[in-house]
């Protein structure tokens, strides 16, 4: 009981501004996650539309890969990216290991299949002849995709939210590829893990709460867009 009580007291002290790191870590977490969410949203939605609309041999295999990617353990994604970016790895010369860019790459590897799979599901839930109807109206390929994207806008919002959620909450890949370097690659999840390891539960709770507030803020923003779209 003492442990929990002390932890909460420590958390409040932490929020009263006695830990100067929290704001810089939160800002870094937000920036890295936003960049990886934007990149994975564009890539995932593009791949999703491609797989949903263009019939080709082996398409179902790719769709199965995208669906399997939804359940991919982040630590495996991190491992693969770490091997690729490692000093002696195929992309080692780029020097991206233990950098925020490396963390963005690993988060994208986790989020892209998720966004793609939700996009595929959304586009495929439309009447099968919808894209033919739009085509028959004289739309070219870009116009067709844009009109279809509007039709599945709620699904795409969910895909983006899921991508953001996956990016911000993962810790294994961030730890492995980012290395949790202070002032460089430390983000809220890796900082929380480190603090728990050090027995600083109050601070860890504070970081955890900050992470939750961040997720909540983004979720509220996206949900309000979603509600407006639904009310139309």
């Amino acid at each position, binding site marked *: 009981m003492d442990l929990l009580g002390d932890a909460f007291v420590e958390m409040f002290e932490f929020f009263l501004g006695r830990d100067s790191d929290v704001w810089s870590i939160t800002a870094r977490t937000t920036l890295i996650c936003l960049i990886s969410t934007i990149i994975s949203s564009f890539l995932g939605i593009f791949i999703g539309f491609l797989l949903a609309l263009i019939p080709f041999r082996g398409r179902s295999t790719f769709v199965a890969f995208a669906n399997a990617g939804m359940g991919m353990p982040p630590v495996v994604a991190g491992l693969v990216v770490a091997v690729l970016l490692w000093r002696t790895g195929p992309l080692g010369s780029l020097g991206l290991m233990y950098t925020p860019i490396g963390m963005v790459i690993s988060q994208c590897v986790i989020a892209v299949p998720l966004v793609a799979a939700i996009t595929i599901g959304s586009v495929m839930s439309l*009447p099968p*002849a*919808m894209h*033919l*109807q*739009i*085509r*028959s*109206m*004289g*739309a*070219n390929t870009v*116009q067709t995709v844009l*009109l279809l994207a*509007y*039709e599945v806008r709620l699904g795409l919002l969910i895909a983006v939210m899921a991508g953001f959620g996956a990016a911000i909450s993962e810790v294994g890949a961030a730890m492995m590829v980012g290395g949790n370097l202070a002032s460089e690659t430390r983000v809220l999840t890796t900082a929380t893990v480190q603090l728990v390891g050090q027995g600083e539960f109050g601070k860890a709770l504070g970081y955890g709460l900050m992470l939750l507030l961040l997720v909540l803020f983004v979720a509220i923003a996206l949900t309000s867009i979603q509600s407006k779209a639904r009310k*139309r």
Partner: protein
Amino acid sequence: MKKITQMIEMSDISVVRGGREVLHVPSFSLKANETVAILGPNGSGKSTFLLVASLLLKPTQGEISYFGKAIKNSNRTPFRRMTALAFQEPLLLDRSVSDNLKIALRLKRPDLKDLDKITGDWLEKLKIQHLAKVLPHQLSGGELQRASLARVFAVEPEMVFLDEPFAGIDEIDRPSLSGDVKALIKESGAASLLVTHDISEAVLLAKRLVILSDGKVIQEGDVGDVIAKPISSKIAKLLGHSVFAAEEFSRLFQIDRPTGNFTEVAVPMSGIKAVPSNEGLGKIVRLEVSVKGLVAVIEIGNQQFHTEVDYGDATFSDWTAGNRVDIDIDYSRIIWLSE
């Protein structure tokens, strides 16, 4: 300058899916101001035909030309902008009815001004001006199809493709909507291709009829000619005719069989009538609802046929299963069919 009268020409068209040829059309043409109906049972390839003709599906082989110009990958979209299509299920975008029309207008005629007025005029023509701001999910089936048809005709297409446009419409809306579509086709001057499984829609809207079965054209010609002279019992049945075995038909109705190898007889529904009578030769098997309304299945000898339920002097209870009927045949409408 020579005026182009052929809107669409298709030659040696074949569509293969999963190793099976689902459509084979040696040749087809659609002329200016002409309405052609494609009639066939489910799975006969009607919709595939429509998709190929409207450039939404590339055939496995064959050539298509619009206005005498060969269709290539590079000119599909510009040519598609000269056409408009309504599917059986009205597929409106998830926006207001007027926005649906405006988007179609912007896509097909980007230079057009005063979209509000044009949209309003077309909604009025289709009698749905009060639904301009309404979203598709708030519309009834009939309203949806009217909105879809408004979108088709608003862009003033050179060619109109209609895939079973009245299939989902109830019996109350259907006569008025089909009448409006006939008037719109005439007024627009567009060449039209109509896909249907209902011969009455073909009779109402089309001049020429193409009958498909298993992906192949099995008869083609003027609507009246095809109805009067179907070349097989399969086509006769598709046209709603009653079909009998020739030998038994001759015996039952004491009609001499003409010279030739005639094995079956077809009689259009309007050429055979049943009248309730206790002494009648026929027996009512059951009543059914068909595209023609309430019809009775009548049994005579080993043969069965459909006839419209005509009350005349009879009452509803006279049309009960098991009751006897007299059969009255218009001999001039009998069609003898060989194998």
